[in-house]
């Protein structure tokens, strides 16, 4: 039980009183081999903070870290997945592929290739691990359970109909005996669905709809479809609520076809994992006409806000705004832009930006910030409890947006073009929304997420293909390596007393650690 002891110790050091350790309990259930300090879920734990208690690699020695192994997938697709470390095995994915790799050596233990299919191969976020199973979503929206020991298929179930336009890149979220699987599908006008599956049998337990299923009387979404939940959520065991970000409404750029707020698209929704019922929703963008999914990580933090101990959920959203909510109620505590945004005329009494109708896509074009790829995107942020900073890879970018009736009301239903953008890693003080520091990452958008560690380090990647280690307190660069475009969020784990940092560059995975003692 070394793992649990270490994490309980970490927990007491955290600002977060409830460190939401349930994933690590599950880690202990997975095969009996002793692994060491692990990263057993997509976000590392239920909070989505992506903050590790490990501190062997520190600001004063990070310049000494050295490559201990590299693993080339041999695939053309870049790794966008967060690797999972469980019982000494790293599981990493790209569309149609899962690899199990020895976390000490980089040696491939097994590889699973999903049969050729015509699903959408846009990216893949990673697996979930439970008992002796590895769960993998597919481009044609299936969920496959693999034997963790040898990669053999245990079962394969359909989550959504790929022929209608659904696909999945999702790393499922495990909450007790519920495996929550998200899909995407907003090339077509489809309702947003999140499915809870029994991890032992593959049976569907419930389906949550973010927009009404076909046949629903009335129109609570004002005629909008969409709101897909394609990113992994977070979970608070005390409130027994799962927090998930929902995607944009469809038709995407045609606002007149769906006048109104279009609930619950572009929202953070709080769902009971036992029933699939909505507890509350908060719209980051109401009546979105710019493809600004609020799918970004809803990060859970327990800390003081305006002097009172508060259970918060915070999100740096694709629309360029940073939100802090009371996660018991969904009420707004703070809303403030963290990236260039010119589309709102103010903030309403509920903490939601007020869309400027003049910035809706139009026949002659509107110059709008952020562009379609957003002020940030699926790349994960990290919360550092010591400093109270949410550190996010942000993107200041302009696009031109067009819509005319000829574009119709199906799918994209408009046209938009990115003009120019540049990236910066921004450290947001959650108490005020102020940017404490900003570190330039170059032109274009970085694909790299962020991880912070207890020693005061922040790992991420720039737009040129460097992995970076920065000092969390001020953003100063302490180490870098040019490994190609970093397309995933870094993780860290400890094995045999040695801390490893894993980062993907292109289609390869790199493991860094301090040199071994001679």
């Amino acid at each position: 039980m070394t793992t649990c002891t270490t994490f309980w110790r970490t927990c007491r050091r955290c600002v977060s009183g409830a460190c939401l350790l349930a994933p690590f309990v599950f880690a202990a259930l997975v095969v009996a081999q002793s692994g060491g300090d692990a990263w057993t879920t997509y976000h590392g734990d239920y909070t989505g903070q992506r903050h590790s208690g490990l501190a062997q690699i520190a600001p004063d020695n990070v310049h000494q870290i050295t490559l201990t192994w590299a693993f080339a997938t041999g695939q053309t697709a870049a790794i966008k997945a967060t690797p999972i470390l469980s019982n000494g095995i790293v599981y990493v994915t790209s569309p149609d592929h899962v690899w199990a790799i020895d976390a000490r050596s980089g040696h491939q233990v097994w590889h699973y290739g999903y049969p050729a299919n015509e699903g959408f191969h846009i990216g893949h976020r990673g697996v979930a691990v439970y008992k002796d199973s590895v769960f993998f979503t597919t481009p044609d929206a299936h969920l496959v359970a693999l034997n963790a020991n040898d990669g053999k298929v245990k079962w394969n179930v359909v989550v959504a109909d790929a022929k209608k336009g659904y696909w999945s890149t999702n790393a499922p979220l495990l909450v007790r005996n519920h495996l929550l699987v998200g899909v995407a599908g907003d090339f077509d006008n489809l309702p947003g669905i999140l499915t809870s599956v029994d991890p032992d049998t593959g049976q569907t337990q419930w389906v949550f709809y973010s927009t009404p299923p076909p046949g629903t009387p009335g129109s609570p979404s004002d005629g909008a479809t969409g709101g897909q939940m394609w990113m992994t959520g977070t979970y608070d065991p005390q409130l027994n609520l799962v927090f998930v970000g929902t995607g944009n409404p469809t038709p995407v750029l045609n606002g007149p076809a769906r006048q109104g707020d279009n609930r619950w698209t572009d929202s953070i929704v709080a769902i009971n994992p036992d029933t699939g019922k909505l507890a509350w929703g908060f719209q980051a963008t109401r009546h979105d006409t710019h493809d600004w999914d609020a799918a970004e990580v809803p990060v859970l933090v327990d800390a003081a806000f305006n002097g009172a101990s508060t259970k918060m959920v915070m999100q740096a959203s694709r629309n360029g705004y940073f939100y802090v909510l009371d996660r018991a109620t969904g009420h707004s505590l703070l809303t403030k832009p963290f990236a260039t945004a010119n589309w709102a005329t103010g903030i309403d009494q509920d903490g939601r930006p007020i869309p400027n109708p003049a910035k809706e896509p139009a026949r002659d074009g509107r110059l709008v910030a952020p562009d379609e790829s957003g002020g940030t995107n699926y790349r994960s942020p990290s919360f550092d409890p010591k400093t109270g900073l949410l550190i996010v890879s942000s993107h200041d970018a302009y696009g031109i947006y067009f819509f005319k009736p000829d574009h119709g009301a199906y799918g994209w239903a408009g046209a938009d073009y990115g003009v120019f953008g540049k990236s910066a890693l921004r450290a947001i003080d959650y108490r005020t929304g102020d940017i404490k520091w900003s570190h330039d990452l170059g032109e274009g958008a970085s694909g790299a997420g962020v991880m912070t560690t207890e020693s005061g380090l922040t790992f991420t990647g720039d737009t040129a293909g460097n992995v970076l280690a920065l000092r969390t307190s001020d953003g100063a660069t302490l180490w870098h390596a040019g490994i190609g475009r970093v397309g995933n969020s870094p993780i860290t784990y400890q094995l045999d007393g040695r801390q490893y940092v894993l980062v993907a560059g292109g289609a390869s995975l790199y493991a860094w650690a301090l040199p071994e003692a001679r």
Partner: protein
Amino acid sequence: MRKRVRNLTESLGAVLLLYGLLAVAPAAQQASPGQLQSGQRVFAAQCGFCHGRDAMGGETGPDLTKSALVRDAAAGEKLRAVVRDGRVDKGMPAFRLTDADLTAVVAFIRDQKIKTESPGARRSVDVADLQTGDAEAGRRYFNGAGRCAACHSPSGDFAGLATRLQGLQLLQRLLYPSNGRGAKVVVDLPSGGTVRGALAYHDEFTIALTDDDGRYHSWSTGQVKFKVDNPLEAHAEQLGKYTDDDMHNVLAYLQTLR
């Protein structure tokens, strides 16, 4: 999530319609509907990952329907070579496709290009859509608040501009001419010498240039002093200052430069 794709049924219908109506590029002319469908299938599975399922841009890859290589109908072999060999410097890997799949993919990309330019096609932006500006107000902005005249002249580099660029292409170029004049850099060496050239690469750690002889040089940014002169910085800065009216007015003015 990035999504620019048309419904498969609609797409196929459009392919068949366009076949009868349009003068198409040679590669697409020779492609059968079956080949285009096959190209669409391979593209969606292999290329849509970066370029979007309809080739109009995705999470990391550009809109191929706007690519100069795609525009050049005679460059089919070059396009095939890019797919086969990749563009590693820009993050595009090589793809191991069969000759038949490669031919189908190239035909599909070309066909998508044609569809975006045909009148009435979905997602199109026509020249007529963009005629809401006031040319005289645009001229004043060009010479005043826009500071365009600091670098450009209607009788110099912009003489006859509207005969070369129209519509959306002109609008995009006025906002940010990414293929315009490149940046220059002057590097002062610790030894006392100075090297000048076209900026070839710049990140936090490395600065590189190509000198007048075409030779590439690079240095660690911490070991030299350097000054970059990037004419595009003024365009990037202006993006935060334009009103939509300013943008449309400048476009209207530039359209008068024939």
